[in-house]
């Protein structure tokens, strides 16, 4: 009887431990430790002075769905076992194409920044006549389209996709967000906002009439 009691007690203890492992995964010895990166330095490759007025951003969430079909030539030796004891002439080979379908779907949150480069303004681009100020600046450009790793979600990853292929598709997503922002007139909006911002600022420093012209 005492042996049965011990077995039951053992089961209860084991069951309780398994239950606790579900609640607190850290006490589970088979719990998979999350991936960790080693502490390495961030290296400064280059630093430069700039003077870019960021005046418009465009935010978009896009889905990139990519599929590919790979075809491999294969040979099927259907009667190879029966040919073990017969001559090679009787061996039958069936050649066929084996196709496989691969799908990768990424969700990306991208932001495009547009603005004007004020560093290109030189003395000849500023005309001051008493309280009238005219400035000629470069037209707005796309400064950057940002989709960082944390902005990507891999929604479907079926088949074989090499890491390099995934990066290429991510690069396509960046280009797509950039094109969407241009389509949504980010450059025109950046120019208008820069014009408004600089006009207000220059009026606040004493100029009564301000003209902002774009090259």
């Amino acid at each position, binding site marked *: 009887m005492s042996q049965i009691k011990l077995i039951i007690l053992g089961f209860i203890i084991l069951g309780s431990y398994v239950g606790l492992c579900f609640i607190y995964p850290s006490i589970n010895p*088979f719990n998979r430790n999350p991936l960790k990166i080693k502490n390495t330095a961030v290296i400064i490759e280059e630093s430069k002075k700039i003077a870019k007025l*960021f005046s418009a951003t*465009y935010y978009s969430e896009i889905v990139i769905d990519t599929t590919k079909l790979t075809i491999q030539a294969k040979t099927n030796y259907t009667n190879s076992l029966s040919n073990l004891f017969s001559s090679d002439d009787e061996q039958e080979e069936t050649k066929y194409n084996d196709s496989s379908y691969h799908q990768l779907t990424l969700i990306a949150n991208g932001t495009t920044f547009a603005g004007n480069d004020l560093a290109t303004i030189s003395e000849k681009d500023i005309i001051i006549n008493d309280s009238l100020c005219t400035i000629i600046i470069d037209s707005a450009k796309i400064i950057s389209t940002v989709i960082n790793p944390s902005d990507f979600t891999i929604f479907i990853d079926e088949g074989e996709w090499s890491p390099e292929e995934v990066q290429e598709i991510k690069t396509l997503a960046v280009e797509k967000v950039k094109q969407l922002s241009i389509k949504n007139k980010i450059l025109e909006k950046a120019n208008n906002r820069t014009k408004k911002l600089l006009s207000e600022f220059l009026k606040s420093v004493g100029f009564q009439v301000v003209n902002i012209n774009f090259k």
Partner: protein
Amino acid sequence: MKSQPFLVTLVLLIFFSCSKEELTESIIKQRLAEINQLGTVEYDLSKVLIVDDEQWYTYGERKALINIEANVVAGIDFKKIEVTNLVPNNSIDLKLPDPEIILLNIPPSKIRFSVLKASFARSEFTNDELNQIQIMGEEDIRKKIDELGILKEATKNSKSFLKNWFKLLGFKTVNYSEL
């Protein structure tokens, strides 16, 4: 029969709550917003991500070595520059806001996989795992940005740019104070 109005109300509630969510999402997630930041410093950074994945219960290990390059732009909010004193054609006193990071960009094209190795008893890194490693790298860069002195450099360059600019506008002296 009495439960019918309740069911109809419930269905209508679910329907309207769903359609509202879709509407706000489409508005929020595709928009053009106004910003007024003057980027005054740009840094090109690089980092090597090293992952050594070995568990006590697995046989063999998985190793990854990934090089990432990032671009950081910092500057000041142009709209928050305050003019505290002004003598036309002579001097101007400005109050500058605190510098801030405008953008951190880690382009997918600047992420290179130098080593991806899994021993025969282990599976290869999945694309999702590789993305998680990249996210950890991104978080680490964000944490270390302060240590690199980028923000100090941004303030210094903002002062230098505004000084030159106001001189072109006819001011002889430009003085600063911080907000």
